[in-house]
């Protein structure tokens, strides 16, 4: 869910670097999807305006703004490089890259409060040790 579809489409394509897959009139409402470059067959994000469901719109907008809509994890080959690149474009990170037993991980939000994790998965998860303990 996004607060404004035009703003969302611009942010997801220009800041996050995703590609627009679909932008169409779905019969009274607008259906937009974006995907990581070249991966539209594998994973797309729908930029839905919550006004399509007037019965829950207020609740969804409230949840979104309060950070209650989470759960998307984007895998990358180089979390630190992606962090630097996206930060330079103005993406709002909530945590810097840190090493954990499962890899290197950081977090960011879209302009509406939706949370994402950006994770460089470790080839073989290591046992938790003081050296890879989060601060």
């Amino acid at each position, binding site marked *: 869910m996004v*607060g*404004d579809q*035009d*703003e969302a*489409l*611009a*942010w997801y394509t*220009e800041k996050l670097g995703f590609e627009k897959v679909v932008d169409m009139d779905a019969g009274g409402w607008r259906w937009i999807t974006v995907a990581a470059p070249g991966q539209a067959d594998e994973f797309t994000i729908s930029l839905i305006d919550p006004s399509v469901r007037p019965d829950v719109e207020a609740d969804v*907008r*409230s949840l979104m*703004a*309060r*950070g209650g809509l*989470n759960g998307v994890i984007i895998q990358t080959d180089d979390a630190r490089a992606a962090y630097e690149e996206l930060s330079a474009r103005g993406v*709002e990170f*909530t*945590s*810097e890259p*840190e090493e*954990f*037993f*499962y890899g290197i*991980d950081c*977090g960011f*939000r879209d*302009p*509406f*409060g939706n949370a994402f*994790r950006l994770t460089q998965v470790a080839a073989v998860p290591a046992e*938790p*040790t*003081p050296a890879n*303990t*989060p*601060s």
Partner: protein
Amino acid sequence: MAATTTPAPLARHLLRARDAADAEYADPSLDVATLARRAHASVAHFSRTFKETFGETPHQYLQTRRIERAQELLRLTELTVSEICLAVGYTSLGSFSATFKRTVGVAPSVWREQERAYALRARIPSCFRREWQRPRAVPDSRIREADGPEVG
């Protein structure tokens, strides 16, 4: 297609302040007044609307975030309780220990011994632990809300 920037709702500003608490909890000078500035609100307005939005005061949120991070360090490191106290933004061991016990129910050292028996929990990625396993604050009428640094 030209992008238009819509005014962010108040809750979005409050979420930015909450994100700051998550990211900067280790700074002992981080307090409610600092968080209120991040939300572009007065301390009183910020504290009231934060509680209305998230169900707890910003002081409670920051305090329980610090305790949650202390639990993570107790679970996964060999740092002493004193070192962990400083690492999560407290400057007084007494204040840290009292808050930990009031929030979690047992002293930090006791909790560490108990938790080591459940080592597999450490395999849950920390981003999920941080989101879902922060302890709830125990109401304490002695805690002032719109105050300066919370640590003693």
